[in-house]
């Protein structure tokens, strides 16, 4: 299939630009960097594109480290009995897998994309606060080196699950927990600073003429995500600070013995935790909303309703936290309230899925790799949405809660959801980053092995959960054996197929078919008006943006 046919549609947003819209590859040299060279250059860079690249490389490395931890878990669960690791280490692996994937892979992945693409999509020369940008990135390697080093400390690393429920994470935690708290603080500060930067950029540096309702949806969803980050990361900081005080200074926030309340930990944690879940999915909605119209060669259906749906999901995310706690003994009224609000989230989420499908309807569809990942996102994220709706039914949740059914649910929204969206974005924007098209053949192999792997891993988990297998156990009863073996084989397939992803990226950086400024004929946003690869400095003279009626 030829990905590059002559444009059929005129671009919807016209741009009159002085200077760097000429679209020649040689132009890239004009932005040559004159600062320090080598390692120091990357350490000190304040350029949004270089920082974006750093974030993406960091995210990919964490994705592999977290993935190796997941494979240790799956290898132990390949068959009943304890074969490879002991329960203590197993618990550290499940915990670290969760923490690394959430805070180290998915969140920095989206921040990296935001760094690269938001200035390009709104016609800004850089992020609003470039030096802060450098600082927020370099906090991350420090934080995660510290977090990983806890595995080597006496008593081991965190072993209480990524949700670190007190008092298992306070009174009964290993000595390394203080370092865990410190590293989470650093990762949190990094996210907060990143969010401030993104908000400041979007609100102040848009190209003249670009109104809020003209912004690409990736920018919109990131703006909303950044507000969520500002609202809930301080709450996470608060709750881990309370843990720190409980562990080291004798307070009793969560210690029943001193009049504290372990249930309060869960309330505060999930008050952060549920919006956090949407922090990991809203930018994905933005990415898919860019890719589907591009490859359907048709404008996104219901732009305004997409913006409103995203906002209502964000607002609702503050009102649903206790659906993670249906079995802790909430009073009846609370159960009912949280059941209703949770069910309500299905409405705006449904609107988004319907809009994507309406965009496909009567389009002119081609299936390049970014599109394949975006389409898989729509289907598999929806499956995760369906199991989410089942989990919302509080009486039934007493049976689903803390079983593999829940594991299946959130992996469906996070892996073929958030992670596939990041991969789709990488395939979609690689031509802009490197000036070369990604290898379609490799991309397809990567896509199909990932889709098969992901489903083989996570679909059987629905069954093992319903049949009664609790999550986070290192060994299980014999009736769950077949499902677990399937999951483990799928995990190995999914894990190894990510090597194709790395291979594809390396090949694309080193060469490949040259991409023009507008790499995909159906693409319309501002980033496609600068040359491919994008020179180090773009939009130093702001472009004039002329909006089209929505």
């Amino acid at each position, binding site marked *: 299939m030829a990905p590059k046919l002559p444009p059929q549609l005129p671009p919807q947003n016209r741009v009159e630009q002085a200077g760097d819209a000429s679209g020649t590859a040689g132009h890239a040299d004009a932005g040559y960097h004159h600062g320090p060279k080598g390692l120091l250059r990357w350490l000190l860079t304040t350029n949004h594109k270089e920082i974006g690249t750093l974030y993406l490389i960091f995210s990919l490395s964490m994705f592999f480290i977290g993935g190796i931890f997941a494979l240790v878990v799956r290898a132990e669960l390949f068959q009943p009995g304890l074969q490879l690791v002991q329960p203590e280490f197993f618990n550290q692996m499940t915990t670290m897998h969760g923490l690394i994937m959430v805070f180290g892979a998915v969140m920095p992945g989206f921040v990296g994309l935001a760094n690269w693409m938001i200035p390009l999509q709104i016609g800004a020369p850089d992020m609003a*606060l470039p030096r802060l940008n450098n600082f927020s990135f370099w906090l991350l390697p420090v934080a995660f080196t510290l977090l990983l080093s806890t595995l080597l400390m006496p008593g081991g690393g965190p072993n209480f699950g990524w949700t670190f429920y007190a008092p298992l994470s306070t009174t009964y935690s290993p000595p390394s927990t203080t370092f865990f708290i410190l590293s989470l603080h650093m990762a949190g500060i990094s996210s907060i600073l990143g969010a401030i930067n993104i908000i400041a950029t979007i609100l102040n540096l848009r190209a003249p003429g670009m109104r809020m309702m003209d912004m690409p949806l990736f920018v919109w969803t990131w703006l909303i995500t950044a507000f969520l980050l500002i609202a809930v990361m301080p709450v996470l900081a608060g709750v881990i600070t309370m843990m720190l005080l409980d562990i080291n200074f004798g307070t009793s926030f969560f210690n029943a013995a001193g009049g504290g309340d372990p249930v309060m930990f869960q309330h505060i944690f999930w008050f952060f935790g549920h919006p956090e879940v949407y922090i990991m999915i809203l930018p994905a909605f933005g990415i898919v909303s860019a890719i589907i119209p591009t490859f359907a060669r048709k404008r996104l259906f219901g732009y305004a309703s997409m913006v409103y749906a995203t906002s209502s999901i964000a607002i609702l995310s503050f009102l649903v936290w206790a659906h993670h706690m249906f079995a802790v003994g909430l009073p009846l009224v609370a159960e009912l309230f949280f059941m209703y609000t949770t069910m309500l989230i299905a409405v705006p989420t449904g609107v988004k899925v319907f809009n994507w499908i309406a965009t496909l309807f009567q389009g002119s569809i081609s299936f390049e790799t970014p599109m394949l990942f975006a389409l898989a996102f729509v289907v598999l994220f929806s499956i995760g949405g369906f199991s989410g709706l089942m989990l919302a039914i509080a009486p039934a949740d007493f049976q689903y809660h803390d079983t593999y059914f829940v594991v299946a649910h959130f992996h469906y929204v996070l892996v073929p959801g958030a992670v596939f969206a990041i991969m789709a974005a990488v395939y979609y924007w690689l031509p802009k980053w490197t000036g070369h098209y990604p290898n379609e053949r490799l991309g397809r192999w990567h896509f199909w092995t990932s889709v098969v792997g992901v489903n083989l891993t996570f679909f059987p988990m629905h069954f093992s959960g319903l049949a009664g297998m609790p999550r986070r156990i290192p060994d299980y009863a014999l009736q769950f054996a077949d499902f677990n073996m399937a999951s483990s084989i799928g995990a190995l397939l999914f894990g190894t197929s990510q090597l194709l992803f790395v291979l594809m990226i390396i090949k694309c950086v080193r060469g490949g078919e040259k991409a023009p400024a507008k790499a995909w004929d159906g693409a319309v946003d501002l980033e496609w008006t600068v040359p491919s690869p994008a020179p180090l400095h773009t939009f130093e003279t702001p472009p004039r943006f002329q909006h089209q009626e929505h």
Partner: protein
Amino acid sequence: MTGVQRTVTRTLVVLLAMFVFAFALVPLYDAFCRVTGINGKVENTAQALIRDSIDESRVITVQFITRGSPGLPWKLEVLDRQVRVHPGAATEVHFAFTNHGKQAGWGRAVPSVSPSEASLYMRKVTCFCFQEQRLDAGERYEAPLVFQLTRDLPDDIKTVTLVYTLYPVDDKTLAAKVLANEAPAIVVPGIAVPGGEA
């Protein structure tokens, strides 16, 4: 760049407010629980008896359960394991603490009410659970609980279970309480020496 500065200032204000809010959640949650009865938390200070007529048409079974916990060689026993009371009537129940360890120490009995809604209608006039207790080695200390179930107790509540779990109080916790200016009332049998505004 004034626009950027303004945005950054505003986001920083929100940020700070949310951090403070996280800590404010602790007292807010506490207050919320006491008002709504979530979690079966009961007032941990003495409440006045409501002088009210007694509803003799209803009899409520009140069960008492006492539990020990690791690390404290104490025993808490209830001398009347179950009482049947009328809503509105005040009732006295006796508990006994024994320290069968070889050292003096501090402990505290933490109450929990089930069903949790019932905690809204449980008024404690006197309770050993209001403060930490100190017992010498081998000492036994009997303490009363005087409580009242108010008349507006919902009709569908027929049994109320009150569970006391005895926890050790270590020096670190005591020190933290002193720092927070809520020094524990020292209770030795017979004499109460408030260490602060108890």
